[in-house]
């Protein structure tokens, strides 16, 4: 029973106000579309990856709704199959990044003395290292990547800024009366962090998570677009790399449907992330909400 109640109260506190926001709702609808596409799309439109050069760069037709690529493979089916891996290397890095940011951020804000200062120093140093170039630098050491490896090397460059925000929040909460009361009652660090601080931190962590999703999407697409790593060929970034750099479809006027379709899907999904991120920010930032 208490499990259901927790879910319900989480729904009331986080999801309901977000859905009430029109932007967030529009974004969530876009994201739902892509999640459904990722889940059932590959079964509806199976993919044959055998090349057939007689079908190179075909224009859209009933058989190939978005045309074909250099190898004569259906572009639409590739995009549909790529949705899964695209969503995976977007959500998994954001999740890892959120866990890192939350634990390091709370520790840096709550622990005083030298360990706390060291943690804050590490956060500051990671913040000064530009994340995208650093991500590319690490990627250059691998020949190929899988979803988990890629997610970790993206997450390493995502957590610092959010950790800083969370640490600052913890620092300001620490001097509040209810935390002081809990400390005087000697309720223990575990209780203070999870029962006293966490409820107040959740909206911030949620905003950071949503922002990290957006950042992880951009980072993974950019990285794959440069073609530094061998990865799933239906990932949209890899597809775009093949379209632009490997097959030269960009410079063949009748082939533009191929790169253009990939771009349209990328923009649409990114729009979904942006809408959710602004909607969430508005929902939990009362100053922006006031004038809606």
């Amino acid at each position: 029973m208490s499990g259901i109640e927790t879910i319900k109260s989480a729904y009331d506190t986080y999801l309901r106000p977000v859905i009430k926001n029109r932007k967030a709702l529009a974004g969530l609808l876009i994201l739902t579309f892509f999640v459904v596409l990722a889940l059932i799309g590959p079964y509806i439109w199976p993919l044959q990856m055998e090349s057939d050069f007689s079908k190179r760069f075909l224009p859209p037709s009933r058989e190939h709704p978005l045309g074909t690529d250099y190898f004569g493979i259906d572009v639409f089916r590739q995009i549909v199959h790529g949705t899964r891996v695209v969503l995976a290397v977007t959500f998994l890095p954001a999740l890892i990044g959120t866990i890192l940011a939350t634990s390091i951020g709370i520790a840096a804000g709550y622990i005083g003395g030298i360990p706390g200062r060291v943690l804050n120093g590490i956060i500051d140093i990671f913040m000064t290292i530009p994340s995208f170039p650093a991500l590319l630098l690490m990627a250059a050491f691998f020949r190929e990547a899988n979803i988990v490896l890629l997610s970790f090397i993206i997450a390493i460059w995502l957590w610092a800024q959010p950790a800083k925000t969370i640490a600052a929040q913890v620092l300001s909460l620490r001097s509040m009366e209810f935390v002081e009361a809990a400390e005087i009652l000697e309720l223990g660090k575990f209780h203070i962090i999870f029962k006293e601080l966490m409820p107040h931190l959740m909206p911030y962590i949620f905003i950071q998570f949503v922002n990290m999703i957006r950042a992880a999407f951009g980072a993974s697409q950019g990285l794959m677009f440069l073609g530094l790593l061998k990865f799933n060929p239906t990932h949209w970034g890899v597809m775009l790399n093949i379209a632009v750099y490997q097959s030269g479809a960009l410079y063949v006027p009748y082939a533009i449907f191929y790169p253009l379709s990939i771009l349209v899907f990328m923009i649409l999904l990114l729009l979904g992330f942006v809408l959710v991120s602004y909607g969430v920010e508005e929902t939990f930032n009362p100053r922006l909400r006031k004038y809606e």
Partner: protein
Amino acid sequence: MDGKYLLKRLASFFIFLWAALTITFILVHLMPGDPAYMLAHQYMQNYGISFEDAYQMAKASLSWDPTKPLWVRYIEYFGNLVRGNLGTSILYEQSVNQIIAKSIPWTIFVASISLLLSFMFGVYLGSNAAWRRGSKVDSAVFFSGIVLSSFPSFIVAILLVIFLGVKFGIIPIGGAYSEDLVPGFNLRFITDVLYHAIGPIIALSVERLAGYMLGMRNNAVSIIQEDFVNFAAMRGLKDSTIAKKYVRRPALLPLITSLAISLGFMFGGATLAESVFRYPGIGYQYAQALGTRDYPLIMGIFTVIITAVLLATLVVELVYPLIDPRVREK
């Protein structure tokens, strides 16, 4: 600003530079794979020599010797760095310092124009939207800000190449100037350079413009709700005075910081747009170096990118007290 503050900031600049480079060094050397091993295979085929000889050659040209302990490599790396020696590029067989010196001006050129344009337009549109919040102007700015946020530089770059470049032939699709021109200080060359910069500048500006627009709007909307703005209105000050002096100025402050920081990030941020246009700036060279696993060039450019970010931060910390009296008093 006193000497002690200046000294403290300078010290923290060097400490951060050292720490950031050390962390990068450690991460890079903990990575699996031996770049010398890969390069040795390349040398073996190219020069027809035995693997042992090729491996020795590769280790020398990369200054990368996995048989040495980590701390020895670390001291060697910093020794070279302090002497300003970034090594020799494998791809270009030229000193990394030279390649960087050649590419930096191109990136500064396109990236700073893009930054200034998007900043000016963004601040103007954002503050107008906030001032007339709820109006049509506001919704137009907000809506276009959200849509433009979904157009990262490489997507804009590819769209520009497809439509303005290939389909209509309005803008050039590669390079920094026409190949048949000799670089020189003459009108023909300068217009050609400007013409080639249009694509990269637009590509770099779209997402950034959206960021400044929405950032300025949100800052100004928050400030309009402050008591001092209400009080100014009650005192009967003109709307235009309140908009300019009471709202725009404080709302601008955080954006000026972010503009200065973005100036530092411009070398790293231009990688994707520059490589679509094959624009020979530092970002394009970085992508080339990464693609060919040219480690000396990769590390050299990365060092430049980090240094630029830290320099920008240093400038912000030194200049900020001059423009924000609230910080000065502390």
